[in-house]
């Protein structure tokens, strides 16, 4: 039996200025358990696509279905309960400056009506989430006291604290050094493999997608191991100026002759 689609775009277009389409007729579906890597140059519409998936941007054409519900024309107050079941990591982490890390992570537990966590269990949930990203020691720190990588990890903790089935990551490694970027990607893979979550990962780095597609989290050693014959359910998408120019598996992406798509593909032998 085919897995249900957690997210579905049907000929979705978004425009901010009259006549200028930021997303142009985008169609795709994300079944449960799939990880989708979205590649594209800056300004190609990757972030807009994620925000549209969450109902943060309105469409000018097409339909968006999130967790089985059509959110295209839903008013804002009816979207909160649906959004509560989706975790999102924003490009610049978007942690609330005036709150500590613990308060930031507790925020969705306290403010999402559909999530009922008893007050006495709240701290435990927050600690558990921060332990997942190895940031338990930073409970009382403010975002301004954290490094870029730590902020990104705290934002991941906030995104996963409610245990959502679908996670949207917006450029999780942007602006990070290679070691920290690897740590963040390892956390994304860990979350996928430990909780069997579905995810959309927006990035402009092919190596991030390569890592997600070919590695699995080993809970015994706490490291990433090559997936070998246990292929991960990963699909790649490439956006160009708001249009979807490629959708397919990693092998198809590497074999694609389109010059724009080729620019994103760093073949393993070239990377070595």
């Amino acid at each position, binding site marked *: 039996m085919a897995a249900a689609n957690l997210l579905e775009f049907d000929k979705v277009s978004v425009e901010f200025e009259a006549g200028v389409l930021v997303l142009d007729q985008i169609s795709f579906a994300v079944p449960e358990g799939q990880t989708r890597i979205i590649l594209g140059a800056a300004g190609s519409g990757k972030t807009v696509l994620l*925000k549209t998936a*969450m109902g*943060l941007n309105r469409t000018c054409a097409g339909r968006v279905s999130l967790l089985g519900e059509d959110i295209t024309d839903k008013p*804002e*107050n009816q979207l*909160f*309960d649906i*959004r*509560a079941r*989706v975790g*999102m990591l*924003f*490009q*610049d982490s*978007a*942690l*609330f*400056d005036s709150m500590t890390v613990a308060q930031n992570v507790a*925020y*969705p537990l306290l*403010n*999402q*009506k*559909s999530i009922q966590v008893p007050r006495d269990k709240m701290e435990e949930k927050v600690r558990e989430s921060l332990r997942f990203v190895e940031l338990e020691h930073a409970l009382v720190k403010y975002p301004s006291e954290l490094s870029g990588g730590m902020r990104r990890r705290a934002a991941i903790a*906030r995104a996963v604290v409610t245990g959502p089935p679908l996670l949207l990551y917006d450029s999780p490694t942007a602006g990070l050094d290679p070691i920290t970027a690897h740590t963040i990607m390892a956390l994304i893979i860990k979350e996928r493999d430990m909780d069997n979550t579905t995810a959309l990962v927006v990035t402009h780095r092919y190596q991030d997608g390569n890592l997600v597609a070919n590695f699995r989290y080993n809970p015994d050693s706490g490291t990433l191991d090559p997936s070998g014959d246990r292929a991960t359910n990963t699909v790649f998408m490439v956006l160009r100026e708001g249009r979807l120019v490629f959708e397919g598996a990693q092998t198809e992406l590497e074999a694609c002759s389109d010059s724009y798509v080729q620019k994103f593909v760093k073949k393993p032998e070239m990377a070595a």
Partner: protein
Amino acid sequence: MLASGFVLEFLKGPTLALQDFYLLTGRAMRNVVRQPHYTDDIKLQMDSIGVGSIPIVLLTGFFSGAVMALQMGRALQQYGQTGRTGTVVSIILVRELGPVLTALMVAGRNASGIASELGSMKVTEQIDAMRALGTDPIQKLVTPRMIATGVMLPCLTVIDDFVGMVGGWIIGKLLYDLDALQYWSQTWHALVWSDVVQGLLKPFVYSFVISLIGCFYGLRASGGTQGVGRATTQAMVAASVTILILNLFMGLIFVKYSGN
């Protein structure tokens, strides 16, 4: 034809902005009676906007009252009416200067502060994060600021009026040798109920101007730190000008209907 097209295009932006402002105002007002109520945020804003503004209100009130007594005392001296200084100071302060100066000071401090805070949150995607995490930003950010300013600005105006009268009394005593009992009794008796209503209604109305304009420009900020700076300036200028315009119209209404 070309000119009318140009005018229509020119008016489109301000009209849309005005429409957005009314929508924001409507939603912020509606949230006053809707759950959830962020009482902690309201208290925090009352402390920040109200208590935090006390020092500038004290200074503004004292010096405006003092300088008014200085100039009015001189003018009244020509007619041998120095003893009426308290009356003049009290009427001008309670009806006009107290509400306007307090509102302008609070606008300078808080409309810009609100715009820069919300603008920074907007450009760093914290507003989007708030929406994604199940919170209505207007309910969480705008309504508490509107309520807090609505409660605190009339209180600050009362403080400003009183401190202004004290400033006027000190100058009257030092320069014109006014009797304290005479000054304070004239100050008290000069005021009628419509003055008090006017003196409290005006800051209540201005409080909405300050908080909503600050929030409006903050939530519209775009274009990084430069956009935040622009929003801050626009909020302060728009709030100050609107207060001065409203002051004239409210003054006219009170003169027409109460005779004061």
